[in-house]
């Protein structure tokens, strides 16, 4: 075909890079979320505390180091096996504080309610918040309520913010991982995402898959009692273990090599993932943590984790490497090596 005629027909898909609307993937915790941070929020709010890009801000106030964080919850359905939006909102924020090495102290809670929501539903969520706060040893000390017209929300959204006190001598950040460090994982992965999805899609399995939603600060405290030689803690929520490891690799400019056979996945979760075409490495968790630790202390820390109910299945799942900086690789069960990529868009929207 002659040049001009062909050019007339050429519709290159490239202009799609210009993103002029928000898509669900922007809330996925994957590369689209990272773009939003880079292109919109960081230029707007630029400051050194924010620039650390950890799960919480660390603030020096009168000689004390405070951790401060906020998180919104839009999970659908509101109630699911192993938890609900109320307990999730408490534990999510508690965990973001805990990942900064902080003892969580106080939470705020804000509700956005849709006109027509059943009072009974709100009561049930409020009771769950109270129980979760009591279990985590935090107090809800301030709050807010807004109501939007029917159709402008989806029953109820929750925001929690929290502050905590960072333990003396603890310095954590995702940019501090060094070659040789060990990657620790506190237990089996994918439970939360699959529990939500199974509930949403009406999938039934031989035994119900429950969310792992749980407060992790006492586990972190037990680990910090062993040593302070941690580089960082992260809870692999949206985007799962893969996103978390990719973030650490990118921020620390190191590679990470995971060992596939060491990563625990429950049989039911494995089965659901096979059916749904999901990779557990990308599925959300709400009660698991990843820690990067000095290799000399890794075994001791694992022993301490095993003594804690939320760390009984803890394992060393990988090593920080000098090679392939910014990339996460995995040694497969067959002994070959592959990349564990960051997820681009949303695998499962509204998971938390």
């Amino acid at each position, binding site marked *: 075909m002659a040049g001009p005629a062909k050019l007339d027909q050429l*519709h290159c*898909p490239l202009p799609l890079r210009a993103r002029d609307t*928000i*898509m669900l993937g922007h809330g996925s915790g994957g590369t689209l979320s990272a773009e939003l941070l880079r292109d919109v929020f960081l230029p707007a709010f630029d400051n050194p505390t924010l620039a650390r890009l950890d799960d919480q801000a660390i603030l020096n106030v009168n000689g004390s180091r405070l951790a401060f964080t906020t998180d919104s919850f839009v999970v659908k359905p509101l109630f699911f096996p192993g938890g609900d939006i109320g307990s999730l909102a408490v534990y999510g924020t508690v965990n973001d504080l805990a990942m900064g090495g902080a003892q969580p102290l106080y939470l705020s809670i804000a509700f956005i309610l849709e006109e027509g929501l059943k009072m009974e539903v709100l009561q049930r969520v409020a009771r769950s918040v109270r129980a979760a706060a009591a279990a985590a040893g935090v107090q809800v000390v301030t709050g807010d309520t807004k109501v939007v017209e029917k159709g402008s929300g989806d029953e109820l959204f929750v925001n929690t913010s929290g502050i905590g006190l960072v333990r003396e001598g603890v310095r954590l950040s995702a940019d501090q991982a060094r070659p040789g460090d060990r990657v620790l994982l506190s237990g089996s992965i994918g439970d939360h995402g699959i529990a939500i999805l199974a509930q949403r899609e009406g999938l039934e399995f031989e035994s119900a898959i429950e969310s792992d939603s749980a407060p992790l600060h006492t586990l972190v405290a037990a680990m910090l009692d062993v040593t302070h030689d941690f580089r960082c803690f992260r809870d692999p929520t949206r985007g799962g273990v893969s996103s978390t490891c990719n973030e650490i690799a990118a921020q620390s400019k190191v590679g990470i090599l995971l060992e596939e056979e060491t990563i625990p996945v429950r049989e039911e979760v*494995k089965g659901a993932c096979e059916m749904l075409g999901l990779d557990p490495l990308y599925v959300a968790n709400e009660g698991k943590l990843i820690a990067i630790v000095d290799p000399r202390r890794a075994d001791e820390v694992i022993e301490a984790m095993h003594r804690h109910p939320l760390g009984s299945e803890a394992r060393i799942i990988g090593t920080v490497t000098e090679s392939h900086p910014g990339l996460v690789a995995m040694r497969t069960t*067959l002994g070959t090596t592959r990349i564990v990529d960051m997820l681009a868009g949303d695998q499962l929207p509204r998971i938390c």
Partner: protein
Amino acid sequence: MKYIDEYRDPGIAKALVAEIRQRTTRHWVLMEICGGQTHTLMRYGIDELLPQAVEIVHGPGCPVCVTPLETIDHAIELALRPDVTLVSYGDMLRVPGSQSDLFRARAAGGDVRIVYSPMEALKIARQNPQRQVVFFGIGFETTAPPNAMAVWQAHREGLRNFSMLTSHVLVPPAIRLLLASDRNRVQGFIAPGHVCTVMGYRQYEELARDFRVPIVVGGFEPVDLLEAINMLVAQLEAGRTEVENQYARSVSREGNVPAQRLMETVLEVCDRKWRGIGTIPRSGYRIRQEFAAHDAEQVFGFPQHGVEEPAECISAEVLQGLKKPPDCAVFATRCTPENPMGAPMVSAEGACAAYYHYRRNAL
């Protein structure tokens, strides 16, 4: 997990690799057809385990990838109509058409829903009689039976507001096209196990006979693929050109006859355009005239417009096994899964996307 763990067993895999190594005396080029198999090969690094003399190239077997740009444009057009609910499998949503994709259509206010089965689309149609519900039904012979069933059921119920936008493609005509090309390098094929579960493998016996090429129907786990490769190499080394069935736990020679009858009732073979390759005669299905009330193309009518791929994309060569994804100048630089320039980068099961996700050039 039963039927999974034993097919991922490292011990069995190693034994098969050793057997392949021992058997191989010269260079062989083998092609897997199905995107699911490409995905497994890359995910487990199976090509790394093979002797260098056994080269694996990747065929055009990702239905999402080969769906023409204009079909995706039609789906987006429909999604943006205020009276239409467009229902699709999740993996079609991020596939770019010429200007946009279904995610963007949804963000722009289009009613786009994701389902795991076309039967759910029927349910949506029953519950919303005032809306036109269109199921975006694409795929190979594997998804044709459930899609045909949805149309058949809608016809039986007289569900006037349900239709299907379809771009079904068939595997054997694509293999025939590859083999007939004078540039063909492929000496043995791994036939797609799930397609053969539905269709059986009689059509592949014709191909093996016509082109004197061995074909092994293969499964999707690492051990399945290694076993299929082992069987192919054994045939090639012995000079045999037969169809063998590695995936016997799922595939029979006749296939799923009731499913075939249903497809025959609702669908008929037609010429189809494949993204990245072009039009292949008698390589797809369309909805029979009898069911025209449920054929979105007939219900809505689309203007015909030609849309071409960017010139830099070498997908035609990749999909014919002439080149590997990293041979492309724009691979992983200007062409990525977020901004695909051509068919094989579009869906996770496409050959370029599989290389991008699991291999890139970095390791």
